[in-house]
């Protein structure tokens, strides 16, 4: 009995303990239920969104890039879809055997050693392009598709540039630099500055994927939209012809623009390059190009700045006329040099030009006439007029690396050289030397401004940009005097470029101005001298040969601006090139 009683007590304890454990179990169940309530009811939207993101994959498909055409709708940059054999490392361990199998099945002539080397560093999940796939190869591949787990045919978009001579304007494409960019983009020149216009809208493939990223099914497809086309003012035949006129072994540039609307008809620079090598990823050629000290990527037409030389003289003449510093008929005596203070300033013609009026001064490019004018001239007037006529400013032609150049002023010198202006500097500025820096495009624009009477059309490359005029009107009389003088340079005997009319009488008649852009100052007295001792002077110290001309001279339609670096005098090198290109433009009515 005794034993039984204590046993009953201990049973009571056991039953009490069960209640404690049951209550603890119930509390734990309640906590779990609360947590489930929080996950599934309170935070339902949050987790629902996450689950949708988890299962939905959006794959972007590259759009076709807009085409670029010349003014006559010749294609100069196009996009095409092409098919490539691509290997995905994540899809099979035996991917390399599969590559070898593919090569033996379809003769692709793959370089296994290089592929293996590059493949090692390649991302597992993005396809590594092995080779382009032709239709016959695709058919052959599809027949044997079951042999390949890791190789797929991938569609990609490629840019092609049929004409090498446009590379320095069109630019090229490059690989994405940020992870948010999925495909290549324009990185240079028009491809870069018109990126938004050209690139188009990518397509989207919405698909349900599993955790390994494998597509279970496609849900929806949004097609990609091709980018906008771009029509340029350039003329294919003129651009190609101009390039052929540039001497192969010399650096130089030719710009041809239309007088009426500022359209840039051709814009060449030598040496040039082939943008296609960037698209074809020919790494060796790209390396060579980047290392080339001739800088073929540098477009001298708008990025190259040189002293304009005598081509600048019309500005000085116009300032003289505007400020009544000269009378167009009044003559100055050129004895070969002019003196300011204790320094002599020489004319290129040592013997002197004798009696010189304005027209003769331009026609025969007499320096002394302009020295005498410069002695009375305020440099700031030169700078102001230059700006009005298109120098010392960036012309927005849709390219990002256009330079500004320089026409000096008192303010500029104070700010940048921290010195006051000397009148002697006005003398050399007035003949286009000294601090003057202009690009071939700016010089073409300057002559467009002169021929248009001061208000000139802003140069443009995009054909669909409306023609806009800028600048200030010139006095009609003054303008006529200058244009007559410029015509005389070619058309009248003793003109510095008169040779042109004699050697090619069948060519269109042009006007223009020769210039010699000084590289070294020592030879001040030797400029534009026919007895120029070119052979004795080292190539890199030779002057740049400059000519800006227009045709036809009586009703100007085209302007050509030519510079040949270290070419010598303007009349012998640049002028004949300009004449040829103007004749071509005129005869072909570009």
């Amino acid at each position, binding site marked *: 009995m005794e*034993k039984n009683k*204590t*046993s*009953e*007590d*201990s*049973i009571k*304890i*056991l*039953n009490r*303990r*069960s209640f404690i*454990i*049951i209550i603890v*179990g*119930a509390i*734990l*169940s309640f*906590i*779990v*239920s609360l*947590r*489930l*309530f929080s*996950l*599934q*009811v309170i*935070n*339902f939207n*949050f*987790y*629902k969104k*996450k*689950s949708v993101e*988890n*299962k939905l994959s959006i794959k972007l498909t590259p759009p076709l890039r807009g085409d670029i055409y010349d003014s006559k709708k010749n294609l100069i940059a196009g996009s095409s879809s092409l098919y490539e054999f691509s290997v995905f490392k994540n899809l099979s361990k035996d991917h390399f055997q599969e590559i070898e199998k593919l090569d033996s099945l379809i003769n692709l002539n793959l370089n296994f050693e290089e592929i293996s080397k590059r493949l090692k560093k390649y991302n597992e999940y993005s396809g590594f392009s092995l080779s382009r796939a032709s239709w016959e190869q695709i058919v052959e591949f599809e027949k044997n598709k079951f042999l390949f787990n890791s190789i797929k045919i991938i569609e990609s978009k490629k840019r092609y540039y049929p004409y090498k001579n446009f590379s320095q304007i069109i630019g090229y494409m490059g690989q994405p630099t940020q992870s948010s960019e999925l495909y290549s983009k324009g990185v240079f020149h028009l491809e870069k500055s018109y990126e938004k216009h050209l690139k188009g809208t990518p397509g989207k493939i919405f698909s*349900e*994927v*599993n*955790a*390994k990223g494998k597509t*279970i099914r496609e849900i929806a497809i949004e097609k990609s939209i091709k980018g906008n086309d771009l029509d340029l003012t350039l003329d294919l035949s003129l651009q190609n012809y101009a390039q052929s006129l540039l001497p192969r072994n010399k650096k130089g540039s030719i710009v041809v623009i239309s007088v009426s609307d500022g359209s840039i008809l051709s814009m060449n620079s030598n040496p040039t390059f082939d943008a296609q090598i960037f698209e074809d990823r020919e790494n060796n050629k790209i390396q060579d190009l980047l290392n080339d000290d001739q800088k073929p990527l540098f477009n001298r037409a708008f990025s190259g700045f040189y002293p304009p030389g005598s081509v600048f003289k019309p500005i000085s003449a116009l300032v003289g006329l505007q400020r009544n510093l000269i009378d167009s008929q009044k003559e100055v005596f050129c004895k070969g040099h002019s003196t300011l203070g204790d320094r002599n300033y020489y004319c290129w013609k040592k013997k002197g030009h004798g009696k010189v009026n304005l027209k003769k001064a331009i026609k025969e490019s007499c320096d002394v006439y302009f020295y005498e004018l410069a002695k009375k001239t305020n440099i700031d007037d030169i700078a102001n007029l230059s700006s009005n006529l298109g120098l010392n400013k960036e012309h927005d032609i849709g390219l990002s690396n256009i330079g500004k150049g320089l026409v000096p002023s008192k303010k500029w010198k104070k700010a940048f050289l921290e010195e006051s202006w000397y009148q002697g500097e006005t003398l050399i500025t007035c003949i286009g030397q000294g601090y003057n820096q202009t690009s071939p495009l700016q010089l073409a624009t300057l002559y467009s401004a002169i021929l248009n009477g001061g208000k000139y059309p802003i140069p443009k490359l995009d054909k669909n940009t409306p023609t806009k005029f800028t600048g200030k009107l010139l006095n009609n009389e003054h303008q006529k005097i200058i244009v007559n003088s410029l015509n005389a340079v070619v058309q009248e005997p003793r003109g510095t470029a008169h040779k042109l009319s004699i050697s090619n009488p069948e060519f269109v008649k042009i006007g223009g101005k020769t210039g010699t852009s000084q590289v070294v100052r020592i030879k001040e007295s030797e400029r534009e001298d026919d007895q120029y001792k070119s052979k004795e002077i080292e190539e890199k110290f030779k002057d740049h040969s400059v000519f800006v001309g227009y045709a036809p001279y009586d009703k100007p339609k085209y302007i050509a601006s030519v510079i040949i670096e270290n070419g010598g005098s303007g009349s012998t090198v640049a002028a004949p090139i300009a004449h040829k290109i103007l004749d071509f433009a005129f005869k072909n009515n570009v």
Partner: protein
Amino acid sequence: MFKEFKSIFNLNWIYIFILLIIFWIGEINLYSAAGGSLDPWASNQLIRFLFFLPLFFLVIMLEPKFIFNFAEIFLILVLIGLITTLIFGYTGMGATRWIRIAGFNLQVSEFTKIALVVFMAKYFHKLNAEKTIGLFKSILPLIVSVIFFILVSIQPDLGTGIIILALGLVVIFYAGIKLIYPLISIGIILSISPILWNFLKPYQQNRIQIFLNPDLDPLGRGYHIIQSKIAIGSGGLKGNGFLEGSQSSLDFLPEKETDFVFAIFSEQFGFTGSILLISLFFIMFLIPVLKTFKLTQVFNKIILFVLSFKIFFEFLINISMTIGILPVVGVALPFMSYGGSSLLSNLIICALLLNFMSINEKKRMFS
């Protein structure tokens, strides 16, 4: 050794019915985990279930006295099994948890839980003359529990080890140890836990850290918890519906057929389904427990109470893991996780519960 055959009509059919419902839910769940396919899990699990049924009925028919008499032998068998596992065991996923017996991979630690409870039930039954149990009398079962905890934990299988230790402690608590001792122990454990931390393997420390902050490693170890929470949370109140669980069918959820099987269920059947499942398991827990109040034999009471608690306890631990309120320690969801050893040991437990629920204590059973 066996009861009379007619006692089979005396079984608690409600309990069997709930067991079958839970197993059936588990089958449906494995079917949906495979994306609507019996292959590979649901069919295998069903074959195992059918294969284990004879054993299930065999255990139901065992004389409780037989179990009582052989309690120590079972424990020694299990001890040998665990040591064999450690020496000859089959290694998978960085742990040595299985031994091969007659072509089956057997996880001995699952059966340790049963043997330990049976052994301790017998031990405390013999002590039942005493009113409350002092510390000294609890030392032996405590030491045995700790030995098994260590043997399993070094496999390493910390989850099962903790369950074993917890069951041992629950038996001691249920058997009537003075309340002062558990309270003191809790105090001591809390104060030395920083030292224990250093004894954990780096991957175990890692699991706990990631449990505390899954975003530490969203694509690595935190991935399980994050994906599981997304699956469960996106189920909402009513669930996405049968076979409509996108997270699970699209393979976002790793180990979805074993430790994270609840996430599959909850994504499909939502909060409502989850509460229903919790209720089912709670009722399943309570049925044997209610019977204990009518019993006076300590051995019977402990077997019924603690083994019934074991199933419910594992259920709670498992879903707490999947909803991120406990670290991922690898405890299976009874009758729903894919796996033979867990299914077999839980079926044996249910058989024992059914066996002991049909006991008529008017006969004196144990000496």
